[in-house]
């Protein structure tokens, strides 16, 4: 380098300028683009998709007739697992999963059931997201890349199931697998951190523990899985079937 400088001053000057520009760019990156820097070191859709198996389509089958109107074990389990809770602001608090009680307008029949991200095959939230932060893994799980979500809330406008929440305030004591950065959007992850290690989602586990077994989790592409057998044998529906989004979450006895 020093030899270059003494022998060829113009070349040396050029290198110096280049070095200077390079260091300037590094400073600019650190200053202006912390999101990009974070993303570069992990947590990208590709990283998450790397653990997903394209041969699977994870889904839930919710048997409404088995769901106890007075039970919210699935909601509590999700809160504990993913670190969200009732903060006393019902209009702005996040709800990854909620219980609803419905009455059929024609027959008067009442039902109770949980509603969460429906993990659509053709998710409107993914279509509208300008940066690609909303994405679908090859195994059908729809997620938000928390590093590149800019908080525009267009996905919330687009989701037909009211499944997403905007993080309105700072949260502490977050779970490492469920970062909840203020100003970004979040929703049910189908407990992807558990699924990737061979476990079942927390809500399903909690429902099983109550003995109701209203929620079944499994691979919709595996004809031998319990969920596939059940949807093949019994009638089940998708919410807003008219939109033809083919959700991974289906409801039976609704």
């Amino acid at each position, binding site marked *: 380098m020093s030899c270059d400088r003494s022998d060829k001053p113009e070349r040396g000057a050029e290198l110096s300028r280049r070095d200077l520009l390079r260091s300037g760019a590094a400073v600019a990156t650190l200053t*202006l*683009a*912390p*999101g*990009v820097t974070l*993303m570069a070191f992990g947590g990208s859709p590709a990283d998450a998709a790397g653990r997903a198996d394209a041969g699977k389509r994870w889904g839930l089958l919710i048997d409404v007739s088995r769901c106890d109107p007075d039970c919210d074990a699935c909601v509590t389990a999700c809160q504990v697992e993913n670190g969200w809770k009732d903060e006393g*602001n*019902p*209009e*702005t608090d*996040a*709800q990854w999963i*909620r*219980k*609803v*009680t*419905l*009455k*059929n*307008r*024609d027959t008067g029949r*009442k*039902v109770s059931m949980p*509603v969460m991200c429906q993990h659509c095959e053709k998710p*409107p939230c*993914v*279509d*509208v*997201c*300008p*940066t*690609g932060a909303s994405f679908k893994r090859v195994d059908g799980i729809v997620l938000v890349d928390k590093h*590149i*979500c*800019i*908080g*525009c*809330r*267009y996905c*919330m*406008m*687009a*989701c*037909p*199931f*009211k499944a997403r*929440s*905007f*993080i*309105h*305030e*700072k949260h502490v004591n977050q779970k490492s697998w469920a970062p909840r*950065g*203020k*100003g*970004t*959007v979040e929703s049910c992850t189908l407990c992807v951190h558990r699924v990737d290690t061979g476990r079942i989602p927390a809500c399903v586990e909690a429902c099983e523990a109550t003995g109701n077994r209203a929620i079944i989790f499994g691979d919709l592409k595996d004809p031998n899985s319990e969920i596939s057998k059940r949807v093949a044998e019994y009638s089940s529906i998708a*919410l*807003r079937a008219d*939109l033809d989004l083919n959700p991974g979450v289906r409801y039976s006895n609704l």
Partner: protein
Amino acid sequence: MERTIYREIKMTPQLWQVAFLLGAFLLAALAAVVYVEEYGHIVTGMNNQIVWGLPHVFAIFLIVAASGALNVASMASVFGKTHYKPVARLSGILAISLLVGGLAVLVLDLGRPDRLIVAMTRYNFKSIFAWNIYLYTGFMAIVAVYLFTQMSRGLPGNYVKQMGMFAFLWRLALTTGTGSIFGFLVARPGYDAAIMAPLFISMSFSYGLAVFILVLTALCRLSNRPLGQGLMRKYARLLAIFCAVVLYFTAVQHLTNLYVAEHTGFERFILLDGGIYTWLFWGGQVLIGGLLPMLLIWHPATADAPSTPVMASILVVLGGFAQLYVIVVGGQAYPMQVFPGYEVLESSFYDGMIAAYSPRWPELFLGMGGVALALLATGLAAKVLRILPTNLSDANIGQKAES
């Protein structure tokens, strides 16, 4: 007839006062942004039901008005209307300024405005938002070149016409993109309609011209330059036609929805029993923003009054804000039909309920800041660039006062 001479405006005490006032609004907006950044959107009126609130109403108004403000220049270079030519430069500057103001509000209302660089570097091209980033930045670049062709000496005349045509087509695409933000939303009964794009284009004609009339009047008064009443009446008559077009598209939008059984609930909400939204629709959008300006401009008793163009423009702007409030907030307030055929008896997440929204001061300040930024940028441009003619009197630009 003296030829049109463009000169930078000279600062008058009144101009300084207005500049300071706009600066104060900018500071208030900045304070609001810092406040929301520190505490989160919990300090705004927005919630998980109404995710786009007052800032979006301001931002979309400014963006829609931006493309409409360029129409004045298009009238001159594309449609050959000579009485628009002297103000074509101001039209271009105002268009860019309004867009900058609108985008500033939009960006600063993001949950993570610090990640703007992400929005500029990562694109999902299936998203109309991603297209809009190109449409907006492209608009600014194209209008800047269009302005250059207008202001350069020695360029062949057809350059201006060609750039004018290009800019006109681009602005149609831009407003189509803005309307389609709502048109492409399949989930909500108030949106999901192709008519949103032409409706927004008609709104842009109307709002853009109204804002242009107000800014032109203010700039001429503050810089003591004559502005012909005949010229203003011509602009006002065009504004009345645009008001009628907006009402037409609005009528078609709602009549079409009324035919669709699943949308009648939403129509009932907006047209009959939606409280603030029904009031804003009939009183704000239809009456104040549509019928009254048309009446003022076309009725023989008021048509020739010197204050009519300005009064009508103010009404159109107020009606425009009402219309966007109904579209943006009203469209979200009406509950989505997540469970068709079922009535929601209980839900912790407001399923099946009309959503509540009360804007708070940080949202209002941010929105006003966008308006202030647009106006300040226009004024600054008029101060440093030769965009405003020294004499817009009817005698000078060939208009008869009674025309």
